[in-house]
């Protein structure tokens, strides 16, 4: 029986909430850095990582040994670490009889293994006996373990039933289920990679899957079962309800059951969640799917697999499982020990034999012996580690004299400490980084320049810009600024030759305006011969049959390509570039059309369509079609007139024929009033009004504090990357432009800023820009460090004379930057000359075997919002996002709030993505690139079948298996008066939450008082920026 609407909505909302902790996964084409724990940001960082560990089975801190290495390299603040351990020792010390602080210090710094590691076997009493040297082997050390309780916890009702069965019977259902679901997802979500498409996709995921599943050979064996389940249901919600009732899962546990189920393939689920939310995404509109569909498929398959594999086992419902826990406790306990990997290794074989024999009495006897031996062994191991720790802390004698209660407390204290240890390391490392930064930061005010700089350049806030900015400033009279790479102009862009829109702005924004790229050349773009050949070969490769015949015929062509790309990538790339057609010079349609212009465009389109229709449908040659005839037909189609006498007369049409033709114009050619309105609406999206343009330019310049002393050249430097054979290429592009190149945003802002009408209005608003100032769009390729200027044909002739100097400066900076960066890519490089380094990094970009063309945003740690003078003397090693901001231009903190709500949030996502990809690259990153295969043209999988790999690949964050990226939370520095800055933070709820929950570390540098305010553990502390200045540190309660 079909469910009521209310019930369906109930299930739908349960699924929605269950999926919330799983982060979105954006298609790889526009890779978006995101926090893998975004769904848990409502929790404090340390609590969220515990939950994530449970949900994703992932590590959330680095191993102790890695932190110990950082300690040896001086990257950990000793003072903070000692203070934390002392505080914790004080909290936990309950007259233990040992120097707990010293123990903690030794545990962190000199111990490799976890001391209290316990696979559920030993009691404190057993450890105490070992420490006392008592005859523990003969003693009754088998403490009272509540086996049913252990089993109930491990096989809880909210865990998918098949996982429990797998854990007890090693049936591998979960693994097979994942494979089947992945195959179904690959079929359904494919975006053009497959030659044969899945049929019926327009009906949605569940219906399409069911339609195909009913013809599937594997499923046909279980067809009766699946049909019985699905045929009674008229929606995926019905199926979910039916399966959950079949499993008899208590309704209170449904939501967490769904969360477990969804988190098994969190990459695919993240993609479906993102797709569900992207209302205008082409593939989503065409082939709809949501989490309810996905869950229905998953649950149906899991029910079928359980029916097939576990029918004989008989534990097909949650109550049956719970009954078995009570009635077959020993057997199930031994089974879960064996198959969960927690079995005591020396007895593993005996456990297996005991289960195989399945004799209740002997199993019980064996289980007691097993528990005793496991307990003794683990107690001995724990005691050994305690003794080693005691020796390091000069407490060997004291350890022996501890009472049972003291040993219990000691173990409890150590266990608590080990749980919090990662957080202590993290905080101490962050403190060291904060101290390092503050040492390099310059306080005080800007001195007025006597003359304007030769050129000013606005770079993206991206960490990679820090290097190139530093070098550009070092080679000449250049002034640089940091601004979000979309330059504050969000728009949707339709590139020349492409039929779809791309949002060139942070994903937090939805653009209203559309910009079109139009060719300046009159000729239509023809496909170059090589492009056509490439397309043909690609299609041949994709066909199922053609490889059989084409290998011999054209296989050699691929050989040339392979040798060229492998042996001489630079030369080969250069040759190929000549064969490809160059993109024509284009301009961007970015001025808004007036109402009259838009009407005129619509009219022109309608007229052209009518002319074609008359010619094609009525067979009338063009020379017989007059303007008046077209006007009459148009008026009729738009229902402004009821008759077209001229047409009837000239073309000898009867009234009925004319009416039929007009109807065809309305329906087939869409010449009707509603569609005309829609066209007008669409045209209204194109471009920006003058006021909008003025506002964008003004906001961009004021937000970075560039309001006076404009140079002759103001470079708007977008950035992007180019590399070969790299599905992650877009991860190296500009995040502020939605994972795309930033050039078009630069071109758009430059056009606006150079427009005389805009300048006139800016002058009225108190932002005068001299007539000789010219904004030039430019592009920084972060893989090669090249910087190219664009739209130079628009440059006034008076500026041409200075162009060479400008170009030379850019080239010098590029070479110096390449040299600095090459050392990070290859520490053994013998390249010494900047020019040679420049060539080497270009080779990297063209080498198709290069898994690491650049480090990207790896090692990011700081986000500095303030004037450039703060960091002018610091070498931040490409680790800092730099957003220019002059608090003096922003008395009410409106601009600061914009920076916090946009760029800072994006920076935090980037930082967290790097953090979690480093601490557990397999689960929260995407593993090694070497095994990646593109899936459906929107993601990558490891091997031929896996979850969609989220996060960053090992090659981006790890260097030879050890972290290259130092995983720290984003250390954010804001330059501004304390009170107003706090107010701005409070105004931006998302940022305020991030600060309070410690997802970012915040410092405010108050230039008026010279104090640095830091937020730590719910409190603001302050210190003097200038170390010579003495300030009594005070603590203010957080507002």
């Amino acid at each position: 029986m079909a469910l009521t609407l209310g019930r369906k909505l109930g299930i739908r909302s349960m699924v929605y909430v269950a999926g919330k902790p799983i982060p979105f996964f954006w298609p790889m084409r526009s890779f978006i850095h995101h926090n893998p724990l975004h769904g848990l940001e409502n929790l404090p960082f340390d609590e969220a990582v515990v939950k994530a560990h449970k949900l994703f089975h992932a590590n959330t801190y680095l191993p102790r040994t890695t932190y110990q290495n950082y300690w040896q390299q001086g990257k950990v603040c000793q003072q903070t670490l000692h203070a934390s351990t002392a505080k914790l020792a004080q909290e936990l010390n309950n007259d233990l009889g040992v120097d707990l602080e010293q123990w903690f210090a030794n545990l962190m710094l000199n111990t490799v293994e976890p001391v209290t590691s316990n696979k559920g076997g030993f009691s404190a009493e057993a450890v105490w006996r070992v420490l006392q040297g008592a005859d523990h082997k003969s003693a009754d050390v088998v403490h009272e373990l509540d086996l049913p309780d252990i089993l109930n916890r491990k096989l809880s009702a909210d865990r998918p039933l098949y996982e429990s069965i797998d854990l007890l019977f090693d049936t591998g259902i979960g693994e097979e289920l994942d494979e089947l679901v992945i195959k179904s997802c690959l079929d359904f979500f494919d975006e053009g990679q497959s030659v044969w498409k899945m049929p019926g996709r327009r009906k949605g995921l569940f219906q399409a899957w069911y339609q195909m599943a009913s013809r599937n050979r594997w499923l046909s064996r279980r067809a009766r079962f699946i049909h019985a389940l699905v045929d009674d249901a008229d929606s995926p919600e019905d199926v979910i309800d039916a399966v959950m009732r079949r499993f008899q899962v208590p309704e209170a546990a449904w939501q967490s059951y769904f969360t477990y189920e969804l988190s098994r393939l969190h990459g695919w689920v993240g993609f479906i969640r993102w797709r569900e939310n992207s209302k205008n995404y082409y593939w989503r509109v065409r082939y709809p799917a949501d989490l309810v569909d996905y869950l229905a498929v998953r649950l149906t398959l899991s029910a079928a697999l359980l029916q097939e594999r576990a029918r004989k086992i008989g534990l097909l419902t949650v109550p049956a499982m719970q009954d078995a826990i009570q009635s077959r406790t020993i057997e199930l306990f031994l089974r879960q020990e064996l198959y969960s990997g927690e079995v005591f290794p020396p007895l593993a074989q005996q456990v297996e034999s005991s289960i195989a024999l399945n004799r209740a009495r002997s199993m019980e006897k064996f289980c007691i012996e097993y528990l005793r031996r496991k307990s003794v062994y683990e107690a001995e191991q724990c005691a050994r580690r305690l003794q080693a720790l005691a020796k390091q802390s000069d407490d060997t004698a004291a350890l022996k004299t501890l009472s049972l209660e003291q040993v219990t407390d000691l173990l409890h204290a150590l266990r608590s400490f080990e749980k919090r240890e990662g957080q202590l390391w993290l905080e101490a490392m962050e403190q060291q980084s904060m101290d390092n930064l503050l040492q390099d930061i310059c306080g005080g005010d800007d001195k007025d320049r006597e003359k304007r700089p030769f050129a000013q350049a606005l770079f993206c806030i991206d960490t990679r810009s820090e290097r190139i900015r530093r070098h550009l400033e070092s080679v000449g009279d250049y002034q640089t600024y940091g601004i979000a790479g979309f330059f504050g102009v969000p728009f949707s862009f339709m590139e020349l030759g492409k039929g779809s829109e791309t949002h060139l702005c942070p994903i937090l924004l939805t653009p209203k305006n559309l910009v079109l790229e139009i060719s300046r050349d009159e000729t239509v773009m023809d496909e170059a011969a090589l492009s056509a050949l490439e397309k043909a070969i690609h299609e041949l490769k994709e066909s199922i049959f053609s490889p059989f015949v084409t290998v011999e015929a054209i296989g050699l062509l691929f050989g040339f390509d392979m040798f060229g790309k492998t042996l001489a990538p630079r030369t080969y790339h250069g040759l190929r570039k000549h064969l490809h057609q160059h993109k024509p010079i284009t301009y961007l349609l970015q001025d808004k059309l007036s109402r009259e212009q838009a009407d005129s465009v619509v009219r022109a389109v309608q007229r052209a369509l009518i002319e074609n229709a008359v010619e094609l449908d009525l067979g009338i040659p063009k020379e017989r079609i007059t303007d008046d005839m077209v006007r009459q037909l148009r008026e009729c189609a738009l229902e402004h007139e009821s008759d077209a006498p001229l047409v009837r007369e000239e073309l000898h049409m009867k009234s009925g024929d004319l009416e039929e033709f007009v109807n065809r114009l309305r329906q087939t050619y869409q010449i009707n009033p509603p569609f005309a309105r829609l066209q007008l609406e669409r045209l209204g999206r194109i471009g920006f009004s003058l006021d909008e343009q003025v506002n964008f330019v003004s906001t961009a310049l004021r937000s970075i504090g560039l309001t006076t002393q404009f140079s002759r050249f103001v470079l708007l430097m977008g950035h992007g990357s180019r590399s070969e054979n790299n599905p992650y290429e877009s991860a190296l592009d500009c995040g502020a432009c939605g994972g795309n190149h930033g050039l078009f945003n630069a071109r758009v802002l430059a056009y606006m800023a150079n427009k005389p009408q805009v300048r006139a209005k800016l002058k009225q608003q108190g932002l005068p820009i001299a007539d000789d100032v010219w904004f030039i769009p430019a592009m920084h390729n972060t893989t090669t460090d090249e910087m190219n200027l664009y739209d130079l044909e628009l440059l006034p002739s008076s500026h041409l004379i200075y162009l060479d100097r400008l170009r030379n400066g850019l080239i010098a900076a590029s070479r110096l930057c390449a040299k600095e960066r090459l050392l990070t890519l290859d520490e053994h490089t013998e390249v010494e000359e900047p020019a040679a380094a420049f060539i080497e990094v270009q080779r990297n970009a063209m080498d198709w075997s290069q898994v690491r063309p650049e480090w990207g945003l790896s090692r990011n740690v700081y986000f500095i919002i303030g004037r450039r003078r703060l960091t002018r003397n610091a070498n931040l090693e490409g680790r800092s996002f730099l957003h220019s901001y002059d608090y003096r231009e922003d008395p009410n903190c409106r601009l600061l709030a914009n920076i916090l709500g946009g760029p800072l949030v994006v920076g935090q996502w980037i930082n967290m993505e790097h953090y979690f990809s480093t601490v557990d690259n397999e689960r929260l990153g995407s593993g090694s690139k070497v095994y990646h295969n593109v899936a459906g043209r929107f993601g990558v999988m490891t091997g031929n079948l896996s979850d969609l790999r989220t996060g960053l690949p090992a090659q981006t964050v790890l260097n030879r298996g050890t972290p290259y990226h130092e995983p720290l939370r984003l250390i954010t520095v804001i330059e501004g008066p304390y009170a107003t800055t706090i107010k701005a933070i409070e105004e931006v709820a998302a940022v305020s939450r991030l600060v309070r929950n410690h997802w970012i570390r915040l410092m405010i540098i108050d230039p008026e008082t010279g104090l640095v305010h830091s937020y730590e553990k719910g409190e603001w502390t302050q210190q003097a920026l200038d170390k010579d200045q003495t300030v009594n540190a005070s603590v203010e309660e957080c507002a």
Partner: protein
Amino acid sequence: MNQMWWFSVVFLPLFPFSAVFVLLIKMLPNAWLRGIAFLLWPLAGVWLLEATQANLPDWVLYWALGTSLLYAFRALVIRELNLWLSYIAVSAWSILWVVLSGSDLTNLMLFALGFTLPMALMALLGGELKQRFTAAYGGLYGGIAQSHPRLSAMLVFTLLAVIATPLFPGFFTMMSSIMAQMLNSPVIAIGLLLIWLLWSWSGILLLQGLVMGPEDALSGLTDDLAVWRVGTYALLLIGMGIFGLSFAVVF
């Protein structure tokens, strides 16, 4: 005296007498004793057969083949290295009865040695595993390839020798037996091929549990095989390879 060959079914074990050897391996407390048992047990069987000079009835051949198939099949689900080795040993030594039908007793001793030498070496490596991880059981402590590359390499090569891959003596024993039976009794030849396939399959499964896969969190605590021990094991393996090649020349 002629009926004394019956005693050989314990030492060149045939089901159900094979249980004696399997039990013995389970009971022996250390790797050296297990190594010696693997080395001497089948030789005792061959010696007994030599002593009795018996003419074996044809059905023994099928009994042996059945035993070998049974143990090869059961080895598929075994994750404990010593038990797996004892099953493979029973399976391999049963084949010696088949070999016997196409060869003389002098050669049988060499064939037996060809099978047992890698097994003895594997038993010692099992001891190395147990010493480090408290058990030689697949799937418990993650893949050791990264944390213990030398031990892993020795395990892989020795296991390849045990499952009779080319160059090692077992390979030539299996080849000559299959070739010998191909014309006379194709059913037995196919049976031998199947057994061989099962050995490889179970061997790879065992390696997957022991060597491959993500390493355990604590595998950073590496205590890999000392270089001199690797050298010794490697020399023994090379010796076996040469021994195997000499089979190819002789037979």
